[in-house]
């Protein structure tokens, strides 16, 4: 029958409960407890366990961390109130915070579009009714469920400048090129081939504000790890696009690309919005991927690849500065909050929700 666009309660005029007491009438008029206004108390009682859990284990720690960010605490001695010193230190006196922000910014900027686009492409490709669909889907989804630490360690060995397979590939290509006659004939070419060497994939920082190899390696690993998830979500969304629309487009003379651009993409835009927000949150909070891949010691900042959450971890458990770590996490919250608000405001422009 009619598909309900949003789950709102049915209009009150159709189904009014019998209102016996004055209290019930007031509750009804105020829009509270449309159904059983006399069982509100029981309702709250049922909610209480979940509510207590939320208050104790989510809300209270969040508020405590806010308070903590205005203190200096090393776990061993009582916290000491320092006002906004942690925040000012981060923005004026921290030699490393700039690099950390740069790395996190690049991680988000590179990982999110790559994951979205690749996931979408894969989903469209797998949506064409391939015979071995299930196998491909499984292959692309397996990295998602693989242990992140194990996978990161494997990629660490892959990318090692000295003993990694990719570096070995560069050396072998170089040998191959050196063996070619036309390379040996030209002294310029020979020179430039001689100078070939694998870059430091895991540790090279970029020049100035540009991303370096370290950021690119972590990006490649993270995209490989998570593209399967994006693909699977898009596959579900593609299934929900009604076929008649494609038929209508074909009748109008639209080519494959045009169908993709004018039918498919707008109709999966709610999914795109969801994935965009969720993956941005994940990219801002990247920790395990760079931490395990680069494997720097607990107490030493790896400038080329340190992300915000890594820096929080180092300050909290490496340097025993809980207050500063809390301050960094609230700065992260502020950044993510602003970005999400901006995205929610922008969504009206490009997200097409289906309304029947």
């Amino acid at each position, binding site marked *: 029958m009619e598909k309900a666009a949003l789950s709102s309660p049915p209009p009150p005029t159709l189904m009014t409960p019998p209102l016996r007491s004055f209290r019930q009438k007031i509750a009804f008029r105020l829009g509270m407890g449309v159904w059983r206004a006399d069982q509100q108390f029981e309702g709250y009682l049922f909610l209480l366990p979940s509510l207590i859990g939320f208050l104790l284990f989510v809300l209270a720690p969040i508020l405590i961390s806010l308070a903590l960010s205005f203190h200096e605490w*090393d*776990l*061993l*001695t009582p916290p000491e109130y320092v006002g906004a010193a942690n925040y000012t230190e981060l923005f004026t*006196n*921290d*030699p*490393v915070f700039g690099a950390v922000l740069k790395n996190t910014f690049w991680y988000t900027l590179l990982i999110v579009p790559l994951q979205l686009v690749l996931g979408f492409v894969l989903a469209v490709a797998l949506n064409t009714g391939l015979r071995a669909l299930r196998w491909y889907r499984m292959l692309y989804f397996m990295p998602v469920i693989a242990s992140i630490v194990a996978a990161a360690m494997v990629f*660490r*060995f892959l990318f*090692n*400048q*000295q*003993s990694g397979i990719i570096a*070995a590939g560069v*050396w*072998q290509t*170089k*040998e191959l090129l*050196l063996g070619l006659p036309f390379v040996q004939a030209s002294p310029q070419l020979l020179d430039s081939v*001689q100078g070939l*060497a694998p870059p*430091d994939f*895991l*540790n*090279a920082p970029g020049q100035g504000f540009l991303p370096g190899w370290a950021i690119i390696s972590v990006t490649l690993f993270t995209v490989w790890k998570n593209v399967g998830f994006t693909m699977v979500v898009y596959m579900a969304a593609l299934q929900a696009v009604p076929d008649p629309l494609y038929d209508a487009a074909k009748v109008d003379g639209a080519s494959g690309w045009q169908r993709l651009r004018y039918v498919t993409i707008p109709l999966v835009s709610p999914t795109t919005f969801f994935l965009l927000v969720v993956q941005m949150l994940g990219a801002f909070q990247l920790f395990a991927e760079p931490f395990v891949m*680069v*494997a*720097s*010691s*607990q*107490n*030493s*900042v*790896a*400038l080329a690849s340190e992300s915000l959450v890594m820096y929080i971890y*180092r*300050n909290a*458990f*490496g*340097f*025993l*500065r809980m207050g500063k770590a809390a301050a960094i996490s609230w700065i992260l919250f502020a950044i993510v909050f602003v970005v999400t608000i901006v995205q929610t405001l922008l969504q009206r422009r490009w997200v097409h929700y289906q309304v029947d």
Partner: protein
Amino acid sequence: MQKKFFLLCMVLVALMAFGTAAVAQDDVTLLWGMWGDPAEIATHQLVADAYMAANPNVTIELWSQPWGEYFTKIDTLFVAGDATVIPDVFFMTPIQDRAAAGVLQDLTALIEESGLDLEDYWPGALESTSYEGVVYGFPRDIGIEVLYYNKDHFDAASLDYPTDEWTWVELRAAAEALTVKEASGRISRYGFAMEGGKYFDFVGANGGLILDDMFNPTQCTLSQPEAVEAFEFFAGMMNDEIAWRSANLGQAGGDLSVFLGEQASMFIQNASRVPALNAAGVNYDVAAVPTAPGGTRQAGIANGAAWVMSSVTDTPDAAWDFMQFLQSPEGGQAIYFATGEAFPPTRSGAESPVFMNPERGPENKQAWIVGAESANINGFGWFPEYNELNGTLINPVLDTIWAGEAQAADVLPGVCESVDAYLVEHGYGA
């Protein structure tokens, strides 16, 4: 009848009271905390079993955590304050912050009572476990380093084996001769491998220091000529492609892995690599860490994780007795040093037949004693802010030196500027 019965009851009650009192006095349970992987925990359990066999009234319960979580968990236990779950004797390093916070027991009185000979410990060993002149713990072992080398590689290159009298000159020459470079330019075997973090082996040997005083620093001394020379030597070997670059080494699995994979011919490390090398049957030996051309040697830092006592323990005497057992060559040391994976903190322990066991490799164990004679603890900062200072101001810049992106002489003055500013901010500056 009733009177007799009553008397009997009184006697029984009296006996019970005495009995339980006697039992309650002698039966002690000690909680013993440490970190380690399952193999290391098994060794600790052997030590506990040995002590319990010799002292039937004492029960030792092990409390172990993986290294990454150990320190946070101990700290939270102390914050919670419940003495029944806080370990009585436990592993700790470094001890200064926790001694300052008052969670460790001052051992002076117990040392005097038992007449322990503190001179038996290698120089510097007890300095690292003291705070403001008071001893708080005893290192179980100390991290004296030696130069490991692959004898097969030396034989194949017709080179003389390293000796305990080697200097940097011979080290570099051997590294050059042992490095194997392919036609494409790829290095398939480096002559030398050492973690960048051990740079103080070179700086200290050359008479340099990181900070002018590692307990109460007033200024950074890394930009002094002795230190810069040492950096240029070590980084020079990496830039000339005869030594592994530090980051690559760590990410390839560390010195042991590359040595076993025959991608390095020599490396400098403490005794922890011995069991794996023995088990793999590698034809190797060790020599003392090479001295600087001027003649001084810095074979690592003479500190190690220490056994400390909690300040809230309710059985200090039993805990002290156990600590002494742990440190005695016939007691704990006989078990800990049986595999050769650690170097004893005492002269008596190092010269004992347990460590010097001729049937267990390597042959030249004397190399450790040579290194320990000039031991000191100058390679580490013994004040609370050192981790942050090192991790944000010093190491990130040193990483660029090891990666060949910067020259030591160019960047070290900048490091010292920022370190001096940090010291002033935190109340240490001159």
